[in-house]
């Protein structure tokens, strides 16, 4: 459906499709129909090693299979997607599996909860198969994946940055509470529906640099303890 716009700056980049063997993926979602749909959409590009419908089977499956990427629903019958991440890491702190949130919910609380539990990104379920495969590959490579909505959340949550004239020590301590101008630009473009490649072309930087900025923002999102972040998420329940 959506044709990626190729820009001169990123034409040289390798095609991600053949990035060293099929990725091993686990799908965690309580709707069998949805799992089937996902499997049908991405089966030819990745290796789906298992499916789970709830928190504890998912944890057992992930610990046993050690997949590259887990597609994780925000809401499960007996808990939240974030609970799966927490439980896996509690049992096996060295587990290198990465998580990509996938949900119909656009509620900032849900999204933020999953990201803060350790997910590398978040997408809405409406996304098509090709885009999803691209996102799985990005997450497997350790990059962050932002849906336009998630980028919007970040901009909103970090909008009221503390003024620049506060004491230097405080500013240094609160580094995770601020976006650099570059990070802000990257988030703005993501919210406008641009891909990393396209953003690289727009800002005249490599798409790897774009990914670095996005990962930095993701880390800030996970580490920032600013009161506004959670308060804001609880307040903004608009779709």
């Amino acid at each position: 459906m959506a044709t990626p716009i190729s820009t001169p700056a990123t034409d040289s980049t390798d095609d991600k499709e053949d990035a060293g063997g099929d990725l091993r993926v686990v799908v965690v979602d309580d709707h069998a129909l949805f799992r089937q749909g996902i499997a049908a959409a991405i089966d030819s590009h990745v290796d789906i090693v298992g499916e789970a419908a709830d928190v504890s089977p998912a944890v057992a499956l992930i610990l046993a299979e050690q997949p590259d990427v887990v597609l994780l629903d925000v809401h499960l019958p007996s808990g939240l997607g974030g609970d799966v991440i927490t439980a896996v890491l509690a049992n096996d702190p060295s587990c290198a599996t990465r998580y990509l949130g996938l949900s119909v919910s656009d509620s900032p609380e849900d999204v933020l909860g999953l990201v803060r539990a350790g997910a590398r990104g978040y997408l809405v379920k409406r996304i098509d198969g090709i885009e999803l495969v691209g996102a799985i590959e990005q997450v497997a490579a350790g990059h962050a994946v932002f849906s336009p909505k998630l980028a919007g959340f970040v901009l909103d949550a970090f909008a009221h940055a503390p003024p620049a004239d506060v004491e230097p020590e405080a500013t240094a301590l609160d580094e995770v509470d601020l976006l650099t101008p570059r990070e802000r630009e990257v988030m703005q473009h993501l919210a406008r529906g641009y891909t990393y490649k396209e953003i690289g072309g727009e800002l005249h930087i490599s798409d790897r640099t774009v990914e670095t900025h996005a990962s930095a923002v993701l880390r800030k999102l996970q580490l920032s303890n600013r009161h506004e972040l959670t308060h804001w998420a609880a307040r903004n329940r608009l779709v």
Partner: protein
Amino acid sequence: MVEPETSGSNTVSRPVVRGRSIQLDDSDPLLGGVASGAAYRLGASPLVVRVAFAILGLAAGFGVIGYVVFWWIGIDRSAPSRSHTLRYDLGIVVLTAACLVVAFTLVPSLPPELLGPVAFVSFALAFSSGTSLGDDLRSGRAFGRIVVGLLLMLGGLVAGAATVGDLGRLWEVGAAIAAVTVGMGAVLAPWIRQLLEGASSDRVERIRAEERADLAAHLHDSVLQTLTLIQNRAHEPDVTSALAYQQERELRRWLYRLSPDDADEPQSGAQPIRTHLSEIAAGVEDDYSVVIDFVCVGDAVVDSAVLAMTAAVREALVNAAKFAKTQQISLYVEVDEQSVVAFVRDRGAGFDVNAIAPDRRGITDSIHARVERLGGAAAIRSTVGTGTEVRIEVPR
């Protein structure tokens, strides 16, 4: 012959004739509704009947006995018990007193010293009839009834003890009664607790059932009907996907209804930009069967400038929906202290901006002119084959 629709469940406020007996009139009873019920049956004024009952009551107590008998017969035991008013409490006290007087005058063999204890117990029982199981025990009146009832019971026991033994042994009797009461309380406690918990869990169950019914009604009106439509039009993929998306959006709106926090905001009638634009986007989605990915950062109240700007945004969305030959459009809006910026982007067909003939006034008028009147700016970037982005900015 009894008409089927006159059975007890109807809500007609006038009493209904049922067979030959008198039906209680509970629309405006002084006490049990016997008098007004009888009045209706006889075609007389309730006042006349009430006076007649009172006179008969004075004359050897027939009125009182008659009243009680009619009441007993007339009570609809299938109807849910309802809580009574203060007037009922007063009425029942008067009626109980009348019954006692009648009983002790008509039956001379009753020892007069029994009057005290019997009176206490009768009043206590009469009071308890005012409470119904559905009453919230925390409400003042229900609680008051119980306290008064218990005190009267206790008074009855003391009076009884005083009548039987000499007053000197009152304390011994009192202690014995207290011991027995505590013992009975201990025995009955689990049962009483179960009763109370049962009542409250009933209430919770009722609320849940109502919520379920609400949900079912909504799903039926929306989702089920849409699913039926989709089944009927399964051979038209465009229509089905539009229907599905429209339904999804509506369901989302319903699920994520405004949180209580949002409801606190002053109801000045002015709409937030976010809501205003999401409605515009929804309208375009419905009209052109496209999907608009709408992201809004920051928010403010819609004013006339914003209104003109969002009209331009709508124009850009419609252009993308009509000409880009793609179903996916991104709308990003950022509101800050100085300005409102909107980006409308598609990855569709694109066009050569310079090749647009100057006489094609569409974009010039609908977007550029609108925005420039507000002191803002609009810019269109487009490449054939890769898509279009319209940037609209107005100062605040």
